């Protein structure tokens, strides 16, 4: 059996890279924080006006904001929203882009041509402006925010999957299974998907971070969650006019965004190293 050995090797490679370790630790921490939010932090909406804009203290780890709300609680609860945004957006983009890519790659011809030109169009769109237009049209809300960000992320997956399909089409084993009479879709499911999984996973990991960053940017300019929802981008935005009096209130969520995006980027790097050794050098 060679599998465990490879796995160990992969794991060793993964653990040898300090970046990946930091990335995984941060990601695990983030997930834990999100899961345990109600346990480790208080009510993110609870106001206490007389205690507004207080600096960090034993009582308020990260101080309070302009309504006397606990910044720590808002950041911790915000992690749930950001994580949800990142995962949902990437999920939608993956499924949508994957389907388009699969269709384009397998059917080829005109379908392929049309699908690829559509992705061209989406690439040419300035992402934030497209997302702004969509969020503006649908009205600001968390769901519309996710739709908007997904709309700018899916074409990458379409390209990726299509490329995988094409490269695998050229390989022998697909031909072999065709000879055995397997249908086109079954081939796709059997062979293409598992092989495409590696680059997909890597891309998805980067994208969770990217989606969180884009969503926070939209939230910052007011196209996101409704107040008083503690979405990180929105929190940075609503506390920024107090940055001189209370730098903690806007810095804490900004640093949270930074760490989260960093975690997923490091994780993506690490996954690529482990799963796709050919691409190791690029990083």
């Amino acid at each position, binding site marked *: 059996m060679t599998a465990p050995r490879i796995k160990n090797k992969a794991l060793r490679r993964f653990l040898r890279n300090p970046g990946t370790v930091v990335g995984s630790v941060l990601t695990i921490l983030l997930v834990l924080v999100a899961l345990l939010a109600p346990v480790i932090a208080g009510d993110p909406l609870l106001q206490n006006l007389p205690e507004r804009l207080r600096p960090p203290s034993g009582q308020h780890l990260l101080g309070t904001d*302009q309504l006397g709300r606990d910044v720590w609680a808002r950041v911790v609860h915000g992690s749930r929203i950001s994580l949800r945004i990142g995962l949902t957006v990437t999920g939608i983009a993956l499924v949508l882009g994957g389907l388009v890519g699969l269709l384009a790659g397998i059917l080829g011809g005109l379908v392929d041509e049309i699908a690829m030109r559509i992705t061209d169009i989406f690439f040419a769109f300035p992402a934030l402006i497209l997302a702004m237009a969509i969020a503006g049209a649908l*009205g600001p809300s968390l769901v519309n925010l996710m739709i908007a960000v997904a709309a700018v992320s899916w074409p990458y997956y379409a390209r990726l999957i299509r490329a995988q399909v094409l490269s695998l089409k050229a390989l022998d084993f697909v031909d072999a299974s065709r000879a055995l009479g397997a249908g086109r879709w079954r081939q796709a499911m059997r062979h293409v998907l598992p092989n495409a999984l590696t680059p997909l996973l890597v891309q998805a990991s980067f994208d969770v971070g990217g989606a969180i960053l884009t969503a926070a940017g939209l939230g910052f300019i007011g196209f996101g969650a*409704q107040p008083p929802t503690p979405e990180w981008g929105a929190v940075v935005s609503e506390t920024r006019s107090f940055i001189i009096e209370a730098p903690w209130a806007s810095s804490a969520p900004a640093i949270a965004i930074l760490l989260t995006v960093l975690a997923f980027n490091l994780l993506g790097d690490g996954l690529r190293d482990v799963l796709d050794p050919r691409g190791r050098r690029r990083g």
Partner: protein
Amino acid sequence: MSLKRIATLAVALVISVVTAFGAAQSARQTTLVIGGDWGDLITLDPGVSYEFSSTTILDNIYERLVKFDGADLSAVVPGLAESWEIAARDGGGNSITFHLRDATFSTGRPVKASDVVYSFQRPILIESPSSFLFTDVVGMDLESVVAVDDKTVRLDLPEGVNASIVLNLLTFTTGGVMDQAEVEQHYEDGDYGQGWLNDHSAGSGPYLLERWDRSSQVVLVTNPTYSDPGPITRVIMRHMPESNAQRTALESGEIDIAWDYTPEAFQAAEAAGVLKTYRTDTFQMSYLGMNSGPGAPFEDNRVRDAVRYAVDQQGIIDNLLLGLGRPMQTIVPAGLMGADTTIYYERNVAKAKELLAEAGVPNLSVEFLISTGACGGGVPCADLAAKIQSDLAEAGITATIKQTTGGELYTIYRAQAAQLVMAAWSPDYPDPDGNATPLSSFPAGSIAWRNVWDNAEAAELASEAAATVDVAARQALYAQLNHLVATEGPYSMLYQPSKPIVTSAKVLGFERSAGGDVEFDRISKLP
């Protein structure tokens, strides 16, 4: 150029970029730079303008027949008209005859009565957003304004229109007089010169419009034909949407006046004492509008009362506004005739709960519509809404905040489709009728209508008060109306804000009226 020379120049450039390099000092003393969020600016045509920032700008370019003396809003004083008399007309109603003083437009042409006629007819012809002031509020039409001779204009008013309201109204930007001959040369596709007036001006005021760089700045320069120019020859209104940016720019001397300080920053500036701080009055009112129509959540006045008891007015003023506002619960704000500063509702959560239970809605749930940006007094609307949301929650009302841009908010509000809305109202001219009719008369189609509050008594009181000339009798009517709308109306008033403005210590003579006017030609700067 030799390579060496290029290199020397490049080095010199880098050095100058890195080391501070003072801008032209000579221009500083006569140039006034105002940093503010002028994001609401959409036109610089006085006949079309209906926004706060354009009002401030245009009143320095276009003279009105009458105006107020600085911040003193107690009586109108001569503007373009050096005198006027009010007389009864044959068919009923009054007419006002204005006698124009000698004045010259920045274009060099003299101001004539025909220009006034043109300027008053033009908004009506354009059907501009502000034209309702002429047509609906004082019942003017195209025939109402007549040039008697070159220096005399007569304004014929329909019966029941109070001439003193008309005079107050004519101080508003829409009454600005422009050079007909000039503007008519610049019509484009029948736009009455609207496009041209955004980049040029044709007024007789102390300044003329030099340029409007969209989203960047509006530049005014002294009108060379103006008889009594002020020491400031150039006014630059710099668009700075971030209040922090205004603050740092003022502290570093890049601007002279900051328009949008947050209450925190204002308090800090007051304490530091380096800059000049002004708490300027406004006639603005921040309020909650409650949809009182049949089947709407606030149809029952007990529910409306519950909201009025639940909102923590004093807490908002003390903690969010940091004192930049005063409590108010009626529809005529302090500073106007007939103002009523009675506090009808002290905060009482238990009472609110009781009223909700009586009304059969102990767990009311509503959508709470708010705008983006800053609300009265410089408080971010989102913060104010979050505070109100938590106040209402204590009484058992769940208000789900829906924050939209101003445009979208008004689309919903205007369609009577808002449940609970946080909005602001400011009269266009300093007269109680500027508030009373829109806020209490359902048939007037304004705020009372938007909140579906159809109260015949209130509408009747408002129109009677508007037509009453005798001051004491008018005040008595407003006292009745104030009480009625405060206790039964569709509003929970929040506060009457002050507008915090901070200037550098060098700026002298700054004054802002409660109506929002700043006369730039009265300002000067120390070297």
